[in-house]
């Protein structure tokens, strides 16, 4: 079983890696993993307490059951405009329902703005530099966007924020982050934002990271080089797929615009005809119905495939950043190691530092390794489902249009002037005329 040792490894290592405020969570996590598995369903708190021999089996089952075991449910909705003296912004309602022990209540409702999500994500990345944290929707959309509070833009953003939180909640590590809990539960986030490493210390870290990356790596392990290559290639491919998809939608919209001219022209013609009026109006009505179907199909693609692809385009930036951070951690260690080899004085303390950094490298690598396969499965599953849905909708579109034209043919089989029975009979699957 591939997933078997995964949570155990993680929890053990995470304990060392994380900062103090996360420690509590992880100690709880370990205890849970060791003694009692996650609850199977929100309602069965009883499941938290299981005899030890069944623990392993339970863990395996959980890996397989996946989403069915969700013990936390988050929704983002109800975007509302808030006006202050200084600015106007949108607040989203974040509703959480959970059975997890570490949450004092089972239901929470808070208001959050985009900046708050940004804060959460940067905290998560800070705490887990080599985990792949799902991306947020972009701050601005370059093309065609004039009005920041355009309804479509807000709705697209809301959906993406919803997905973001759910992705985090599904992550075996990030889901138990203290920052995450605070985000979901604290009525007022501002005080929490002020805690943690200050701006200056963050700056210091960044400078160090940059300095290290300039020095360069001595040697990157093969597996991470391969990963890097994949990230480069994937990034190109997914960007291309996204572009092609956008182009298809654009072409389809232009097609639909022209198609909409058809129906009124046929109808106009029908007005000057006698015998021909009926079939002409029939065709006019068919074209109009097909236009509606086309509209729906375009809408579906925009709602399902485009956001999914777009998210993974944004993911590539995350992946690149994760690879960079991993490289930096390794570079820092190597630098100190070199320093250790050269300096004679304070060998002991340097040795300690080097050992600490070596551990850090190992933890970072393990974290990434573990999260990498998780991310790949997630990507495959998300994109597969988006493509499947699109293909299904396309089949549906053609089937609807087929029915429309077949019913027209059916109406033409009857001699003009006779009464028709309407849609009483089921439509044949093949046209009567060959």
């Amino acid at each position, binding site marked *: 079983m591939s997933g078997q040792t995964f949570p155990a490894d993680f929890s053990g290592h995470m304990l060392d890696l994380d900062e103090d405020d996360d420690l509590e969570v992880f100690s709880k996590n370990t205890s849970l993993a060791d003694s009692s598995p996650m609850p199977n369903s929100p309602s069965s708190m009883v499941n938290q307490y299981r005899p030890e021999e069944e623990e392993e089996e339970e863990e395996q089952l959980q890996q397989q059951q996946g989403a069915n075991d969700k013990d936390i449910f988050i929704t983002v909705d109800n975007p509302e405009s808030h006006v202050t003296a200084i600015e106007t912004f949108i607040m989203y309602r974040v509703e959480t329902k959970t059975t997890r022990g570490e949450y004092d209540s089972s239901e929470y409702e808070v208001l959050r703005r985009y900046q708050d999500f940004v804060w959460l994500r940067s905290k998560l990345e800070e705490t887990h530099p080599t985990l792949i944290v799902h991306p947020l929707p972009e701050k601005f959309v370059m093309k065609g966007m004039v009005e920041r509070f355009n309804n479509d833009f807000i709705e697209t953003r809301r959906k993406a924020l919803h997905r973001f939180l759910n992705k985090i909640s599904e992550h075996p590590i990030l889901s138990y982050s203290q920052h995450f809990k605070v985000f979901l539960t604290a009525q007022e986030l501002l005080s929490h934002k002020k805690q943690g490493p200050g701006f200056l210390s963050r700056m210091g870290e960044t400078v160090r990271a940059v300095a290290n990356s300039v020095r360069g790596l001595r040697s990157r392990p093969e597996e991470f080089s391969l990963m890097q290559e994949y990230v480069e290639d994937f990034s190109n*491919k997914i960007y291309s797929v996204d572009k092609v998809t956008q182009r298809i939608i654009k072409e389809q919209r232009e097609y639909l615009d022209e198609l909409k*001219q058809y129906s009124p022209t046929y109808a106009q*013609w029908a007005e000057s005809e006698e015998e021909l009026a009926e079939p002409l109006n029939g*065709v006019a009505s068919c074209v109009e119905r097909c236009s509606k179907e086309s509209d729906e199909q375009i809408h579906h693609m925009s709602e399902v495939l485009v956001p999914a692809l777009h998210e993974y385009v944004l993911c590539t930036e995350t992946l690149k950043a994760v690879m960079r951070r991993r490289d930096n951690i390794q570079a820092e260690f190597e630098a100190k190691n070199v320093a250790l080899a050269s300096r004679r004085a304070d060998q002991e303390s340097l040795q300690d530092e080097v050992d600490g950094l070596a551990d850090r490298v190992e933890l970072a690598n393990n974290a990434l390794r573990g999260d990498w396969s998780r991310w790949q499965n997630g990507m495959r599953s998300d994109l597969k489902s988006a493509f499947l849905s699109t293909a299904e909708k396309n089949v549906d579109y053609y*089937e609807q249009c087929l029915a429309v*034209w077949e019913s027209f*043919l059916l109406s033409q089989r009857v001699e003009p002037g006779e009464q028709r029975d309407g849609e009483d009979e089921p439509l044949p699957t093949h*046209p009567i005329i060959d």
Partner: protein
Amino acid sequence: MADCGSNEEVAVIFNTDITSTESENNLINTMVEIGATLLRKMEINVTEAEKRTGKNTVNMQETYTVYLIETRSAETVPEGGTPTTPDTLWRRYSEFELLRTYLLVTYPYIIIPPLPEKRAEFVWHKMSADNLDPDFVERRRVGLENFLLRVASHPVLSNDKIFFLFLTEEKEWREVVLETGFQDKVDSRLKSLSAMFRVKNPDKRFTALKHYSDELNSVISQLLRVRAKVADRLYGVYKVHGNYGRVFSEWSAIEKEMGDGLQSAGHHMDTFAASIDDILEEEEHYADQLKEYLFYAEAVRSVCRKHELIQYELEMVAQDLVSKKQQKEELATGTVRVFSLKGMTSKLFGQESQEQRESRLAALEQSTREGEETLKERNTECQEFVRTAWEDIGRFKEQKDRDLREALISYAIMQISMCKKGIQVWSNAKECFNKM
């Protein structure tokens, strides 16, 4: 084959060179009238097209296309016998035009079937507007055959000698046509089409018909314009999906589990992108059917105009007669009611003698009698025109309703076929995505 519920005989149109859609089209478009039309005795096909170069009338080298007309007796071949070899001759488009002009002039009361367009119009970007382009030549070949079949199945036109010679006499035909002297009548025809004259008592039926022909022209033009734009856009949609094919293929190379599913889905996207070419080619066919009636609208209009001219000339003759009669009356009674130069000059320069008056009276009598004769002739001519024209118009209306209804049905069939292809491709793609 769609059965329109008509009992009319269908001509055997024997041709293996054309596609099934085209033969369908011919069958649809050429329902033979009952009666002794040429088509019952003779099979007519336009089977080939060839490029020729030669010197034209101003002695310059030009390249043009000629079309092979095959004719064969329509007698049934006995069992085991071989079909007789057809008689053939070559004609170029300008000769068809000459034939049509002749028919237009000789049968002004008939709605003369139109020729396929001289230049490609209502093109969408993929189509060539070049007259020498093989696709254009091919569609013109079909259109020319259609024209011949229409004429050959017309109760009046099919009996025309010149038409028969067009089909049978390659070299001498041109001289024979010109010898008929129809060209003289061309001028008056042109006059009828372009002149602005007002008819005092317009025939309401013809006015309505002219109005209808204008409507038909306008609405079919609009339809063809929209169709061209829609075709253009649809082409774009399908072809862009081809990019999916390429990108999926490249992407599949870097994936493990997803690779196969992506790759095969990509192939289906390529298939989808390629399918638009056939779809739009079939639709060209539908556009050609519409175009035929676009040009028919023009033919209807010209019959209406011709009637207007006849009516106008009739009114002129009648008016002239009235004026002559009045002059006669005045001369006889001595009162001047109508202005005449003679009358004026006699007033100014003195009364004319009794002799002069009587000779003028006699001349007017003669003129009046002649005028009455002319009026009677013109009246008969006009009535005959109206009668024969409305017979043909009735025939045309039935043909038009039949043909266009069939065209709409075949358009629906095309759409269905396109939908079925779409269902298949996307179902296949769905299967592949499932394997990702």
